[in-house]
């Protein structure tokens, strides 16, 4: 059952990721990415990270991707894009680099020999809960957590700075 679930989720995740990269239409890409995010939260569930699985769907599919789709719609960007117009040097180079990176990463991962401690299912279930994460978040990780608050505020201010329409600058004369 577990193996079946993994194979299903992995196939789904890889398929949607490839479809996202290769689909010509921007809207389709965004929709495939949403499907991909759903499958990633499937991974989280199978790894006993319940809280993150929920957050993944809420934040990625619910917030980030809606923002993407919204901008695509606002900018009316639904024309198709030829991905491979002509085979140019840069794209071959890109694919080459990618293959090398992939080979290296898989080699590294394949040689993973970390001896993993044994945990009972009970203990594993307890890691991914809201309590476990919240507990650490507000004690050990308090500083990064508060810094994230500033990060998100800064992102909103930055987006306002870049995207507001009316240029309303007070010229100072002294």
């Amino acid at each position, binding site marked *: 059952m577990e193996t079946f679930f993994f194979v299903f989720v992995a196939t789904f995740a890889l398929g949607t990721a490839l479809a996202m990269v290769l689909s010509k239409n921007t809207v389709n890409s965004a929709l495939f990415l949403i499907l991909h995010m759903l499958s990633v939260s499937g991974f989280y569930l199978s790894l006993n990270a319940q809280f993150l699985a929920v957050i993944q769907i809420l934040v990625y599919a619910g917030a980030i991707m809606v923002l993407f789709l919204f901008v695509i719609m606002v900018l009316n960007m639904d024309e198709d894009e030829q991905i491979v117009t002509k085979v140019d040097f840069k794209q071959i180079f890109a694919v080459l680099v990618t293959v090398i990176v992939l080979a290296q*990463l898989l*080699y*590294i991962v394949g040689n993973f020999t970390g001896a993993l401690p044994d945990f009972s299912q009970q203990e594993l279930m307890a890691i991914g809960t809201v309590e476990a994460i919240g507990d650490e978040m507000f004690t050990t*990780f*308090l*500083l990064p957590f508060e810094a994230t608050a500033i*990060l998100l505020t800064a992102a909103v201010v930055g987006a306002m*700075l870049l995207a507001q329409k009316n240029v309303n600058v007070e010229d*100072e004369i002294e």
Partner: protein
Amino acid sequence: MEIINDLLLFLPATIVAIGGLTVMMLDGYKARSRTIYTTTMVFLGIALGVASWDLLMQAPELIFSDMAGAGGTAAFGTFIVVFGTFFTVILTHDYLIGVKHNFPQVYPLLMFCTFGMIVLATANDLVTVFVGLETMSVCLYALAGIIRDKRLGVESALKYFVMGAFSTGFFLYGITLLYGATGSTSLPEIGAYTDGGLIYWGGVSLLLVAFMFKVSAVPFHMWTPDVYTGSPTTITAYMSTAGKTASFVALVLILDRAMPFIATELTATFSIIALLTMILGNAVAMVQDNVKRMLAYSSIAHVGYLFVGLAAGSVAGYSAVLFYLLAYTFMNVGAFGVVAYYEKNHDVHFNNVESYAGLGYQRPIMGVLLSIFLFSLAGIPISAGFNAKYLVFSAGIEAGLVSLVVVGVLASAASAYYYLRVMVYLYFREGKESVSLIEPKKVYSFSLVFLALLTLYFGVVPGGVTEMIYGYFSDSMLTATAP
């Protein structure tokens, strides 16, 4: 209360963050731009005062459950960042009014960015490094695009964003692999891990590649010239001084605390990076006619010199890097400040070296200041730049990297060509048409004069500071290799 104590030790960052939020609210209530600027300066002034006090008095200590540090290198990095920001804001205010893009949102963003830089420079955990780095980067992406109705401005923001976000992915992968190999994200705990193993090395290399992206070392420098040219000039100064300082301090901390046992293995890699960066940065800077672009390539070259210090992999090398960052902040903020002054009297494209012809006599003080800063950047004696280079190169010699240092000295000598070229235009060429420069504001020229004095001061008596920096690494695991 432990948290109150931690906050007190983290006071510069706290003040800057509260200041940023205050300024943001002021903007929300439609305060005048003068009020916003003044409030920003007040908060930054207090933060600078606290940072200086910390720098002199605070003993090294870990705060926030070992997430960050206070005192020592952390206080040093915080001081440089807040100092750089303080002067950047003075220059930016004037510059943005000059080019008519004085948006009130710029000031809270600069404060938030400074907060991110402080978090990055004080981090003692890869999670903190990640959050600090991203806070800084997200703000810088937005700041790069302030001049958003000009093609160059938004293009540079897009380039910066794409490259930055791309490197973030690699940075995160590096953290993940290190976490998987060592079971921790804390720098000392990673440093205690000595087993090596492929996944560890994969993590180390991805992390370093991402850092090289962020500090623009060759071959990951390609975004730098365009972004530095397209951004508002004073923001470029900010990116290249405060931003680079924060990244380099974090890199030094990671190397010192998390990878002390592999410092010797990394020497070869860092030497190659330093070699490429010095040669390419200086060579391409020579053929640039745009002064801003020339300074962008020169900042790449300076990253090369800094990497010589990292390649040394010793306490001497790391403290030389920290001193270099301090000196570089003085002179580069100053140099960009004068360039911004020349630029805002005309249009945004007034950066060609030929249009500087004869300007040295128009406002003598600005010409002299630019000459001082450029002399220092070139590393001519009696300037902070000379001492910084001297320290970095002598650390390299101590570590036995003689041929690398020889190349560095030659590259540095060659760099005098393009710095002096600007001065030749300033003083020895006739201007084609008469360009009239308006008188700079008093506070503008005063801050530049102050920076120039600091540049000269640290050129004459660097002793006290270098010893202070040396003391930061007293409990370093590398101490054994120090002289």
